[in-house]
């Protein structure tokens, strides 16, 4: 009976003392909870303790009432995202993030992310479609195929092959100029181009589309030397003159943009200038028997031609998979 009475007194004290101002251990518990919430969810300065106390109490009470997970939530153990967000973002509402954090403690977040797609020691295959943009007389379109070997993550050596023959088209401008001004503009036809080139990636980044998808991309500069097979199209004396393809040494320089669709598949577009010395058709027609002399068909001297080309295509990296050398 005595024990029962003592137990009743203790129980009354436990119930009534909080109403009268709280026992010391209850105050300590509240302080810890308040501290945890402040650290995890708010960035309230010390001067605002009174306000933050009341706000924290309300938030905590709601958490308790909803799921009884106040201990985990308030303790903040393993809630790396929440702490990082709190440090950076300042004061934010706590209720909206409470639900997913119950399972967040087992995950890892890395301060430095790995490069999305390593290129080193991989081979890149580049099928493409190309067209010229600076020639108003003839549109030189081509089908292209390139091959690059990346010996570092930003440097590659490769070859680029373009097939033009049969794909080019002549604009009306040439015909109109001939008819209206009696001037013939010499034009040329291209068969193919094969180029050795080096690629360097100085610029990279990532884009988000509608804040939902992230696309990695890089920009590169490319340059090299190669060969083009071209011949004049007989415009001045087409009844007699026939030209065969000849090799020209061509230098190229350009820049491009590569968007990664996966770790081995990318979309790319490239702007490249192929410069070479071209031999045009002679604008003068020799008289008499010399008209059929092939040595009189070419103009004297060579003309520097800039073939500014846009290439659009896909690239495939081989092997498809790779391993990171360093851990996360």
């Amino acid at each position: 009976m005595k024990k029962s009475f003592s137990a009743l007194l203790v129980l009354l004290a436990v119930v009534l003392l909080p109403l009268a101002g709280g026992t010391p251990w209850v105050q300590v518990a509240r302080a810890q909870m308040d501290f945890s919430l402040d650290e995890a969810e708010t960035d309230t300065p010390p001067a605002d303790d009174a306000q933050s106390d009341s706000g924290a109490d309300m938030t905590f009470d709601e958490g308790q009432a909803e799921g009884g997970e106040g201990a985990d939530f308030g303790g903040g153990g393993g809630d790396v995202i929440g702490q990082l967000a709190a440090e950076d973002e300042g004061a934010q509402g706590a209720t909206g993030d409470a639900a997913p954090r119950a399972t967040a403690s087992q995950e890892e977040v890395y301060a430095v992310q790995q490069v999305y797609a390593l290129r080193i020691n991989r081979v890149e295959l580049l099928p493409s479609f190309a067209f010229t943009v600076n020639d108003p007389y003839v549109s030189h379109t081509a089908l292209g195929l390139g091959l690059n070997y990346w010996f570092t993550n930003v440097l590659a050596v490769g070859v680029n092959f373009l097939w033009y023959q049969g794909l080019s088209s002549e604009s009306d401008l040439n015909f109109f100029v001939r008819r209206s001004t009696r001037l013939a503009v010499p034009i040329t036809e291209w068969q193919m181009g094969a180029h050795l080139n080096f690629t360097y990636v100085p610029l990279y980044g990532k884009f988000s589309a509608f804040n939902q998808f992230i696309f990695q991309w890089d920009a590169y500069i490319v340059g090299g030397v190669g060969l083009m097979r071209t011949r004049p199209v007989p415009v001045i004396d087409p009844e007699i003159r026939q030209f065969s393809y000849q090799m020209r040494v061509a230098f190229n320089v350009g820049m491009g943009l590569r968007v990664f669709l996966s770790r081995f598949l990318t979309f790319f577009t490239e702007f490249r200038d192929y410069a070479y010395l071209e031999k045009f058709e002679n604008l003068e027609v020799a008289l008499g028997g010399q008209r059929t002399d092939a040595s009189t068909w070419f103009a004297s001297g060579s003309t520097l031609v800039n073939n500014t080309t846009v290439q659009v295509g896909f690239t495939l990296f081989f092997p498809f998979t790779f391993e990171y050398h360093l851990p996360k």
Partner: protein
Amino acid sequence: MNLRTMNSRRMLPTLPATSVLTCVLVACLTLAASPALPSHASAQDVQVTGPLAGAPAVRRMRIYREGRLQLQPGFAITLQDQFDKAMVFTLQAQYHITDWLGVGVWGGYAGVHLNTDLTKQIKAQGVTTDRNRLSLPDRANFDQQIGQMQWMAALQLTFVPLRGKLALFQKLFVDADFHIFLGAAFVGLEERADVSSTGCNVACLNDSQTLRSSRVAIAPTFGAGLTMYLNDYLGLSVEWRGILFAWNRSGTDESGSPNGDFPDGEINSSDRFLSLNHMFQIGLTFYLPTEAHISE
């Protein structure tokens, strides 16, 4: 210089259009059927789990456009010009309803015109005969008969599908976005005035060469660009723009005959040809208010 008239329109042998299309189609099908390719194109296959699952792709992103006014003075130069290259001083004002959609106006004044190499060649070596006197009355004045764009104004919608950042040599990091736009443009044109060779003697034709007429062409305009942000309110923008309309660039008689696509002895609207007029623009972008919002 050859003085003969070439009767053949095309001197360059080409494959039939169907062959080209077949080649392209086969190439596309081959690529698409490759077993090495993934079954679907999607965003990068980053399998996000744990605390990042379901989270937005970017946190604390600077919202450069939403609710802000964009003012952009710029400079543009026309591309692929046949006879006249124009340098255009531009100004753009745009209000962005969301971070990915804006509406605005763009205008430009072509303050500087340069003759292309072809124009210089015609001025130096063009030949006038009785057959082409209407098209080229006097080669020395050829640059005064060519068509020119004088000014442009457009009402346009801008769509910003991609937003991100870029690093230059791993040292310089800037926010950037990619935009496309579409709108209606009004282009102030100056062309050679209409003239008929019927009843017009040599002196009359010579006088007609430098007579000009002005009109406004209404045309669709579209393009794409990249904006790099130097700070909250200042950016650098590069942009390509196309404006599609018909005009007589050369001031010559090229069409109008009822018997086909031949000269009809008159220079008039039948000598206008549809062309996509390109220009490249670089601009300095200012945003108002000067402070950008930051997303969650």
